[in-house]
């Protein structure tokens, strides 16, 4: 992996060096994929949105401000901010179609009905469950949570990306986490009791600690 800063990579790409662009994609796709998925949902063509974002980056790469240049961390923040904004817009464009949204909601509702809700089910497919709880939140809460918890963007950066003010971001995160905490309550309880005594659950825990592969 290249150790060049984002600013250097952008400059190289503008000079026509493709590896620089590939490196930028490698670096940032994870955050953007999560962002897009948080808005559009796991079953959506969110990957294509991210693809389009990178096409946009290729086509008209942004100019970083003079004060950011030379400081890798600030370059990164600025570029990410731009990328997140573009991702957000692209997602919003996709979501604007009313038909689509209705269907998406329908799909979520029906998949829940098919599972018989989770009160009746032993809840250990942790990932699916967390994802589902996240899906239940309104889009704006989901988005800020994804940016903060998985994207590790600060409140301030999130405010900039979403065009909201910092107070609103804090409020959305609080409300979202509260709802999430309630939704995941049985799961958290289960995990706690598993840590006290279960053997099987420890296996699950081991797996989870591995994080995600790709």
């Amino acid at each position, binding site marked *: 992996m290249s150790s060049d800063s984002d600013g250097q990579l952008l400059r190289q790409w503008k000079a026509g060096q493709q590896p620089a662009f590939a490196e930028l*994609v490698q670096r940032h796709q994870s955050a953007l994929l999560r962002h897009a998925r948080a808005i559009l949902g796991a079953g959506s063509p969110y*990957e294509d949105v*991210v693809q389009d974002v990178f*096409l946009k980056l290729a086509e008209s790469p942004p100019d970083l401000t003079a004060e950011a240049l030379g400081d890798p961390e600030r370059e990164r923040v600025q570029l990410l901010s731009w990328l997140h904004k573009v991702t957000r817009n692209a997602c919003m464009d996709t979501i604007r179609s009313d038909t689509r949204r209705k269907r998406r909601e329908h799909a979520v509702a029906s998949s829940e009905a098919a599972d018989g809700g989770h009160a009746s089910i032993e809840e*250990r497919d942790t990932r699916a469950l967390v994802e589902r709880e996240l899906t239940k939140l309104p889009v704006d809460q989901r988005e800020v949570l994804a940016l903060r918890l998985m994207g590790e963007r600060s409140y301030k950066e999130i405010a900039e990306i979403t065009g909201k003010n910092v107070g609103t971001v804090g*409020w959305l995160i609080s409300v979202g986490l509260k709802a*999430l905490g309630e939704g995941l309550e049985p799961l958290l309880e289960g995990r706690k009791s598993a840590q006290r005594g279960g053997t*099987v659950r420890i*296996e699950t825990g081991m*797996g989870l600690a591995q994080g995600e592969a790709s």
Partner: protein
Amino acid sequence: MTMEQKLHELLCAYALGEADAAQKTEVERALASSPEVRAELAKLEETIGLVRETLGGSESMSEEAEHALMSAVSPAPRANPWYSSGWMRLAASFLVVGGGALWMHRLYEANEAHMAPGSVAERDAGDQRKSRVESNSKADPETLVAQLDQKEKADRFDSREANSLDQLSLGSGVGKDAPPSAQAASVNFVEEQVPAESAPKAEEALAIAEPPPIAHRSLLSATGYAGNKLTDSATTSSSGPVDGTYRGSGDTVPAGGAGGDKTSPAPAAPVVGSAPAPTLLTGRKSLTSSGSKLAPGNERPNNANLGLAKKAAESAPGDSFAPYTWRDTQASSRPAADDVQDRVALLLQSAENAKGERLARLEDKTAQLKGLGYTSGELRDNDEATLQQLYFKLSPAERAQVLDHECRRVFDSCRRRPNEAPRDMFFRYWGDNPFEITALDPLSTFSADVDTASYALARRYLVEGRLPEKAQIRTEEFVNYFKGDVPPPTHGTFAIHTDLAPTRFAQPANSTWTLRVVVRGEELAKEERKPLHLSFVIDCSGSMREQNRMETVKDTLRLLLTQLNAADQVGIVAFSTEARQILPLTSVANRGLVETAIGQLEPDGWTNSEAGLRMGYETALAGLDANSTNRVIFLSDGVANKGETDPSVLAQTLKPIREKGVYLNTIGVGMNNHNDTLLEQLADKGDGMCSYVDDMREAKRVMLDNFMGSVETIARDVKIQVEFDPAQVTKYRLLGYENRAIADADFRNDKVDAGEVGSGHQVTALYEIERNLANTSEKPLAVVHLRWKAPRIVNGPANEEATEITQPVLGSQQTSFEGASIGYRRAVIVGQFAEFLRRSVHARGRSLDELIAEAHKLEAQMPQDADFHEFVALVERSKQLVLDNLPNCDELCQAIDAYRICQIQHAQAERLDRERQQQIVDDLARQNREMEEKIRELLRRRLENSPK
């Protein structure tokens, strides 16, 4: 905004590190005063932790999407590239919408799925490979693999344009093998055709009908490259890498990764440093000295903190290979909080014992700390520092008291538990098999194990730049993964081979040897096999959607089909939230039916392994045939989350069915949350083998190369016992087989279950032995006994008669390491690497560089062995990762290790005759006292934070 809401926001900001100084103070004040607030923060942190843990890993686009992207931007940016034209934008937006719609439609279809043989092939473009495979289902396996390979290669090199062209030309009947030179023209084609005709129609269709009618759907799938690609890659991307996965220099490897190992952030610890007190464990000779007050069995310390000490001692059995640190008894991350409290309680207690103003202040302080202790991350991480801080505030007498507590905690964790065998003590301390002293226990007994999953899964981890868990490394499976090198028996079921050479890696080099014991099973020819009745139980839970797992499973099944003939029968059970039978046992002659059933599998819902297994067994029992091999093959990512999930309980339910003559094989797919233990245990209890498949290459290996071994059992309850001669071998250690150990006395107890061996399997066991070279006896230095029973006869009388064969190991057959057979050297090298991955206590001080050098030498001698080449590349790539994670054993850790060894020797001495015992025990008592003093001193230094 209510107060409550305000407070919750503050807590969120606090937990996420967003609070400023004033807010922090405010929160901390609230925390100190209110248990409710503490509970709320704790819950918040748990929620945040859970979300991060489950969804926080890094993600990347599917390979196709990335390739498409890269080819779209290549060469360097154009002023006005093709994709920015108005038409293309329209086309793109249509494709996005259409793709989504198509995906929805597939969802509906999946829900209403019923068997309609003809409809499968044209379901969508993502199933193209399937239809191609179907049309070629009679083709031989090599061709099939080649086809899949080709398809996958094509996918990689396809640019966005080429793919569009491919799909378009299929839809419009143009030959799809257009040469690359046609690409330029194709772009025009795309620009003109797509938007002008299909886009408006499709949008119309979307507006009117839901789901779109068939005619429009096929149009969509013909033109909807983006749509199909999108949904496929977002859900079950249709092509996984076949070749190059493991060599994958181009693969992105998350460096370090979120390795689940708790010791992973350990500082780089080069493999140097003296092996801890090697002289203490040199067998009987060093045991000859005197006197003790430590009578084993009644040595439980009589102190008020017994409960606490016991708890600490039990917190991390078997996994305490890490050096002693303040944290080493808080093995998992969660109990950390409790431990802080324990420690503070301990301090408080010592404070209580001697009263005074100063202590009252201290009490105050600790109460405050206690209030924050389990909520503030700072304290949780730095409880050592906190303890040190508090320690300084104590009077010398109190310090001594705290030190006493700490010492007792350490000593108790090292002491023998009532009736604990010496080898169990060793295992509890370090999680590895110990060196056994031959004079005390000349017999080593274990069950055969032919699984290979551990190696395949570990390789997957390492390729992705992560270190597998210690518990996941089963040395024997590493060694057995590689192709057999000794000839199968000329007559009879088994042949035993042994090799003996000085080891390359252990100390002391001149007297430590490695003995390889190989049990090789007879090889049945394919023509000789009985007809197969295979009942597949396939995990179709939601998690199978990830990382191409479902496709891998389907491809694996298709590969297997190529090995079957009309006399064989196949049944399929799919399970997710519930189980359903998709295909009862059906002759493979009806290939269309079987293929269609495979095509039906769609991931959705929970993982109810229990229901799946039950129905799988029902399917198998319904078609139970005495003249066939009846086998259930369970394919899953192993994360059971509904129904019974405990492997031992699940296994219990298998027992009665197993006795009817139905075997169970398990095949693992996927990773991250892959539950290796469940699958390994199931296969073990189900009398079958456990494999792991992560791509087509591995599928081919398991299904084609090892086909006969997987389906044709030649012997069951195969047990191996090696008897060493104490005069020639002072001590020995078995590498691996930790969970296959059998009590020596049970070797000839035919009621005790052991492993099954399939046709042509090679079971290898490695022993490190220390020889007494002064003894030049002609007698064998060890004798290998092998005992097994014939396979069960379905519906026949239980044949419990066992056969036993024996093979001596002669000292005269020894060679040098270089002179040993390549199979031997390969086994030793692979086994040694597994030892490193296990962070085995025995591997301390051994050199990974030396191992790599030996591997290279060997590699040059066996250019044909692709598996070994891959292994060598893997070791080289993972070298830094492994080194970074070796436990760093400091002086205190070494002292504690020495103390532990002393305790084990003490336990061993108990088994000697009375007179010698007394002498040894006296001597150990003296050593014990010295060591306790040393540990105490080191602990004191640690507490006062004054490293020498």
